[in-house]
């Protein structure tokens, strides 16, 4: 299995860009959160690929923390979403302008 590390980096960059485009263009709050997950995963892939390239476990350790933070982020994000939905009956991120003036 001698795939050059660059291939993985390019793959991760593309997944990150797809996730970034999703965050910018989608209006559905849930899909925006999913796109954020995609971006986090792309970064995880970069960390693991470079961890193997540099023969160091540090990258995999950071991936461990990123996963924890991602899980916490989704839990809190969906809870906020539930609270907003019960008040406003909308999933559209454009209509949630509570903090905008």
């Amino acid at each position, binding site marked *: *299995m*001698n*795939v*050059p*590390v*660059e291939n993985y*980096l*390019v*793959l991760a*960059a*593309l*997944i990150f*860009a*797809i996730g*970034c*485009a*999703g965050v*910018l*263009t*989608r*209006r*559905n709050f*849930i*899909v925006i*959160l*999913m796109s954020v*997950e*995609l971006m986090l*995963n792309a970064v*995880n*892939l970069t960390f*693991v690929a470079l*961890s*193997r*390239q*540099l*023969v160091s*476990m*540090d990258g*995999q*350790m950071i*991936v*461990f*923390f990123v*996963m*924890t*933070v*991602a*899980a*916490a982020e*989704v*839990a*809190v994000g969906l*809870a906020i*979403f*539930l*609270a907003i*939905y*019960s*008040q406003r009956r909308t999933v559209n991120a454009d209509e949630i302008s509570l903090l905008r003036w």
Partner: protein
Amino acid sequence: MIAFYFIALLTLASALLVVLHRNPIYSALGLVNTLFLIAVSFVMLDAELIAMLQVIVYAGAIVILFLFVIMLLNVESEVRSARISKIGTAGLAFVLLFAVELAVFALVRDPSGAQELPAGFGSTELLAETLFSKGMLSFELTSLLLLVAVVGAVVMARRKVES
């Protein structure tokens, strides 16, 4: 090498499905697919424990959470607006530029060749050793973060019942 391209194409296809599909259920299923395929990439990169965690934590917990909320709220398909807003266009152009830049940067990097991996690289023992020596403080802080997240999620979700 062929295996890598196969996996990479599938990963990109399902990532696009997440972003492009109107129905959030299909987006969630695409997300499961993407996460599984990234786990496969982790296995190919000799990170078995991380791959297991990926399947358990992401596919097993996070996506279920997404699906649960979608089912709970009965979210309908999004009506695609004909025009993308100005800021969306600017954002897409930026993303495209960003992707090209990242890809070029990754390719231009001097390929130094993979070094010989020590025995047990990516194993639970080695990861745990790193985690509990170098990452001890971060590990403890993570527990604090999870506590705050649990309390925050419960508080946010309870407000719904009261109103």
